[in-house]
């Protein structure tokens, strides 16, 4: 650790830690970032650039860093981590990126020599030929070389989300943010103060600019302020938290690194995504220094001046004892003073401004400390082998001289950090005085304070804060801020210096992250891309993950000069969220893996588990798909067994997931007649009816069984997945279309567990279980229901079936569900009762020709298409969808209609989703479309018929009965010959059903 340590730094502990970079171990201090730790060890070369693989070092000291991106090997191999913000800890293992075989010798740097090929928009011009090269050469090559780091491995995040509702959010815990917070202490406003660093203070920690506040040194003042805030009841501080997104309605997103400076505990959440809803947002997020483009302005050793000062003041590391400083503004004197305070001295101070424009105080200080001073001069470029060694200075007589220096600190001025402000849709304007864009008109309740609002002068700060927060009616604060530098900011416009190109290697960069040069900008404009948004995309300027934080305004400056326009006329590109990269893990939070989607279970779920059920997801429900009799039984075997047993004796299904809606009111009958196609007027009380619900387009929306208790009271069942939609549909019509109807609805899906028992021996089982009920066919005919008392609860049994067999549906309170289910099994044992799952349910209903909404129908099917004309109440005045059923398109004869299909060769199996066609073979190469007649909607091997049965929607299907057609197969061109038949395969006379 030979780089000097600033012993006056209050933010770094003396505790030494060991870190590893590219396999070598280094010492650092607790509190260091990776960047400060590496600088402390004189490591300048950190990585290789994106396109040209040029050597790159640490350019900044914060979130704006475009160069120093590293891979953290011990954190799930996390790539593209900014070394300037990631805090080091004992044992952190870091690796450089985008180089092979090593950082110092990278084969990829050949791209730099080939750079003429990679000029602006090269990807629009290259890779066009020869034919076949794309798939075999270009794509594999690009895939291999694209990107910087390597993707994470074996990563299972435990990120969480935290919602906040506050009155005021303060973004930034620097001087402006802290002054605003102090004003709000112990007020009735609930305030959240968010700071990206692990310390409050911002510029007070990062520079030497402020000497004292209210007579206290800055460290003491920060500590006092933090204590006051923590003591208050109304302000909460979030540190290590970066606000990344500013959405509409004052909704902001911030990301907290909960293991900043610590090794991640894999059992804890490493990130918290804060979702903040606030009434007012105070943006006090400061400014970002920008660079100046010159020849080789990307060499390791070039570091922004204020970042250099931040390393000294905030991290206690002096990256170099004798840096050269290159500026176009008044702020850099602060860095000079910081260095002199540590007995270091810049080797040159190069100021592009005219001598008379440079502050007297600066000139005197430089002379007094004997610092070589180059007024009205600029850096022409720098050179060196993987680091700065020589700096070339052009004076006002256009003469170039060189000096030896290992670091060069440019400062091109400051950009108010307007990123979040513009995300909030606030408008910005160009300010000639600070030579940058600053906030103008807020779109939301947004207040900008301090340098983000373009106010770089401390003397005006309190006045600004008091004025802008006066609407909150809180007391004014007027602390005395004593500074170490002259407070009035001055700057001269300078975006790029004149370059005397000396080699092909030499480049002047405008975007370090994406390797965009100033030459690329000029070339793009020459090629016609003179609109800033087009130019951005053509060159990829400011499209890197740093979003051009230190360079985007510079590119506007250069473009404005080429186009001979004002910058305000050129305009800005759009700032988009997030402000800094957010991991998908943070966005997803806990909605991953076992919590990806909420799960619903029926009251007898555990019984299913105990009995080897294999589950399938039906919406959010976990439904038994089939029950494995033994470990080696396949799904096909289980389903065939369950189906046969149900038709032979009896089977039972957990149908609790079916939607259930209670409908009551004096107009309930009229409502039901309007909602469903069926007529309910003549329906007798205590009977039930299979019913269809249509959309206004006449297409089938849902189906179910309606139980009529009386004309004023109904219970409707819906499909499992359709329950919420049907309930909402009914409510919507009640509240918007028919508010005159006096009808109320309650969803009672969860209030009744449902068992569907069916099979020829069902009646015998039911008689054993419910001894008080007469199950005789005459007393309890098909499509009737009875209510009865079961352990002091009201239960309901309905005679209905979805299998085509004699069947009953039992509705019981969930508290007695398991008990009753087990009782049924106890008695059912003697009758060979089998539990069956949804797959068997589908097979059995297909044998009987019953449709499933969503399987046979797809939102384009009318009742007529599936031969459900009989379900339409012909004499009804109206129902939803009625008008649509008489449209010319819905009455066409050649609409797709429901048919049954069986293979001519009974040993063949037809797959669901396959096409019904007229041709026996498909051509090897399809040159003209093959006429499509329809598709297979359901297909099963029927154990009861011992061959495949299918249902299909086929054009004009009703007229095709008995016709021979073909069905495609997933593989091969030979189609399966089939016959179109009636879709009811078993018991078309309903003898079993009504027995």
């Amino acid at each position, binding site marked *: 650790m030979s780089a000097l340590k600033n012993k006056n730094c209050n933010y770094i502990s003396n505790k030494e830690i060991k870190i590893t970079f590219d396999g070598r171990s280094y010492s650092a201090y607790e509190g260091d970032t990776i960047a400060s730790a590496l600088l402390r060890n004189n490591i300048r070369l950190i990585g290789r650039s994106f396109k040209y693989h040029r050597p790159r070092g640490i350019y900044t000291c914060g979130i704006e860093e475009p160069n120093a991106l590293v891979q953290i090997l011990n954190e799930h191999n996390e790539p593209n981590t900014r070394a300037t913000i990631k805090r080091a800890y004992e044992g952190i293992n870091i690796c450089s990126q985008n180089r092979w075989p090593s950082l110092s010798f990278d084969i990829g740097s050949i791209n730099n020599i080939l750079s003429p090929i990679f000029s602006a928009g090269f990807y629009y011009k290259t890779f066009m030929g020869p034919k076949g090269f794309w798939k075999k050469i270009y794509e594999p090559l690009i895939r291999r070389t694209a990107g910087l780091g390597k993707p994470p491995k074996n990563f299972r995040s435990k990120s969480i989300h935290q919602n*906040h509702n506050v009155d005021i959010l303060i973004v930034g815990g620097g001087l402006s943010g802290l002054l605003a917070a102090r004003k709000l202490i112990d007020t009735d406003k609930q305030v959240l103060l968010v700071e990206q660093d692990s310390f409050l203070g911002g510029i007070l920690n990062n520079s030497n600019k402020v000497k004292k506040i209210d007579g206290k040194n800055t460290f003491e003042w920060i500590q006092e302020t933090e204590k006051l805030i923590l003591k208050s009841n109304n302000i909460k501080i979030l540190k290590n938290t970066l606000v990344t997104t500013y959405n509409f309605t004052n909704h902001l997103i911030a990301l907290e690194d909960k293991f900043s400076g610590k090794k991640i505990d894999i059992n804890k959440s490493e990130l918290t995504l804060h979702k903040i809803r606030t009434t007012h947002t105070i943006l006090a997020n400061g400014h970002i220094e920008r660079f100046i483009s010159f020849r080789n302005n990307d060499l390791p050793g070039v570091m922004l001046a204020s970042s250099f000062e931040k390393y000294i003041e905030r991290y206690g590391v002096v990256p170099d004892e004798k840096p050269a400083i290159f500026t176009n503004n008044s702020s850099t004197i602060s860095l000079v003073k910081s260095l002199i305070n540590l007995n270091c001295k810049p080797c040159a101070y190069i100021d592009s401004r005219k001598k008379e424009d440079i502050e007297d105080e600066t000139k005197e200080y430089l002379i007094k400390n004997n610092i070589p001073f180059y007024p009205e001069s600029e850096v022409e470029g720098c050179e060196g082998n993987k680091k700065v060694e020589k700096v070339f200075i052009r004076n006002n007589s256009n003469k170039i001289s060189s000096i030896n220096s290992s670091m060069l600190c440019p400062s091109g001025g400051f950009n108010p950090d307007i990123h979040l402000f513009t995300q909030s849709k606030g408008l910005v304007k160009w300010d000639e005085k600070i030579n940058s864009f600053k906030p103008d008109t807020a779109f939301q309740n947004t207040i900008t304070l301090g340098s983000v609002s373009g106010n770089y002068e401390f003397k005006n700060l309190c006045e600004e804060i008091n004025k802008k927060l006066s609407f909150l009616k809180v007391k004014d604060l007027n602390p005395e801020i004593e500074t170490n530098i002259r407070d009035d900011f001055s700057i001269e416009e300078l975006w790029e210096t004149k370059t005397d190109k000396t080699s092909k290697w030499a480049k002047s960069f405008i975007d370090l992250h994406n390797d965009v040069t100033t030459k690329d900008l000029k070339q793009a404009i020459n090629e016609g891309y003179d609109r800033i948004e087009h130019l951005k995309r053509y060159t990829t300027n400011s499209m890197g993950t740093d979003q051009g934080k230190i360079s985007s305004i510079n590119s506007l400056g250069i473009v404005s000069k080429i186009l001979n326009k004002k910058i305000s006329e050129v305009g800005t590109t759009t700032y988009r969220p997030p402000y800094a990269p957010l991991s998908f893990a943070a966005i997803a939070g806990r909605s991953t893996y076992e919590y990806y989607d909420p*799960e619903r279970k029926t009251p007898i779920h555990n019984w299913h588990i105990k009995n080897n059920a294999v589950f399938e997801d039906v919406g959010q429900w976990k439904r038994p798909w089939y029950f494995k009799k033994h470990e080696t039984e396949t799904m096909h075997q289980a389903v065939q067994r369950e189906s046969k047993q149900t038709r032979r004796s009896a089977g039972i299904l957990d149908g609790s997931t079916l939607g259930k809606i*209670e409908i009551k009111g004096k107009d309930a009958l009229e409502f039901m007649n309007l909602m469903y196609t069926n007529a309910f007027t003549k329906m007798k009380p205590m009977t039930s009816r299979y019913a269809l619900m249509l959309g206004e387009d006449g297409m089938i929306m849902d189906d179910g069984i309606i139980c009529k208790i009386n004309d004023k009271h109904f219970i409707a069942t819906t499909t499992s997945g359709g329950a919420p939609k049907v309930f909402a549909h009914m409510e919507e019509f009640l509240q918007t279309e028919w508010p005159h109807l006096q009808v109320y609805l309650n969803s009672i899906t*969860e*209030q009744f567990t449902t068992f569907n028992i069916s099979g020829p021996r069902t009646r015998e089982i039911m008689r054993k279980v419910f001894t008080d009920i007469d199950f005789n066919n005459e007393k309890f005919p098909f499509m009737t229901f009875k209510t009865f008392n079961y352990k*002091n609860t009201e239960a309901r049994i309905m005679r209905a079936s979805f299998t085509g067999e004699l069947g009953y549906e039992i509705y019981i309170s969930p508290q007695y569900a398991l008990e009753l289910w087990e009782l049924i099994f106890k008695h059912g044992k003697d009758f060979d009762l089998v539990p069956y799952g949804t797959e068997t349910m589908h097979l059995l209903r297909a044998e009987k020709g019953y449709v499933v909404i969503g399987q046979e129908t797809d939102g384009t099917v009318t009742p007529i298409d599936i031969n459900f004309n009989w379900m339409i109440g012909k004499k009804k005045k109206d129902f939803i969808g009625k008008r649509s059923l008489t449209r010319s398109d819905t009455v066409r004869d050649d609409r797709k209609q429901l048919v049954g299909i069986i293979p001519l060769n009974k040993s063949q199996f037809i797959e669901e989703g396959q096409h019904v066609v007229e041709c026996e073979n498909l051509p090897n190469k399809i040159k003209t479309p093959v006429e499509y007649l329809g598709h297979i909607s359901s297909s099963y091997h029927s154990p009861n018929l011992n061959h495949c049965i299918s249902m299909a929607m086929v054009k004009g299907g009703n007229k095709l009965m008995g016709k021979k057609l073909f069905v495609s197969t997933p593989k091969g061109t030979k189609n399966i010959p089939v016959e179109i038949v009636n879709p009811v395969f078993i018991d078309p006379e309903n003898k079993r059903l009504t027995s």
Partner: protein
Amino acid sequence: MTKLLSADGVDITQKNFQQILIRGDGKDQFNQVVNKEISLQPPSKNLELKTNDKCIFAKNSFDQWTLVYLVEQDYKEILKIISNLNLNDEILASDYSYGQVYFEVLGKNKNEFLNKLTQFDLRDKKFPDFSMAQTLIARIDCYIYKLNEKYIITCNKSYEDYFKKRLIDLINL
């Protein structure tokens, strides 16, 4: 009653409450019928709740009320109340006792904890005592009732396992 978790200033207990969901027009006749059955006047303001030592009575929306029994009642009695209410054509009462699960949430950090699962603004000034809301918690539809120092949260029983797992998962992270 099952203690689910107690840590970091949050205590959550699963309760065996019972519930009736009532719909009606909220006019005089409705109030009289309901008052006769349960001796408690239905709240008239949306999202307001009334309580006594055995139940809370909340108005969920312009035509919907929930009656949650905090002290276990004879289930026969609840069914009888439902039956009596349903004698009136202009009222629909449904038994929600065993198709729902109930959680009591206490502790000084209860708001912060619940705000890991819901964006709902739980601050006193936005969600005062004796009010209720229907909102998403852990991405499922829940009712939340605020009573002095505690919340009562109910959701469909089918989500019980998922909801409990989410609560326990968060306290451990």
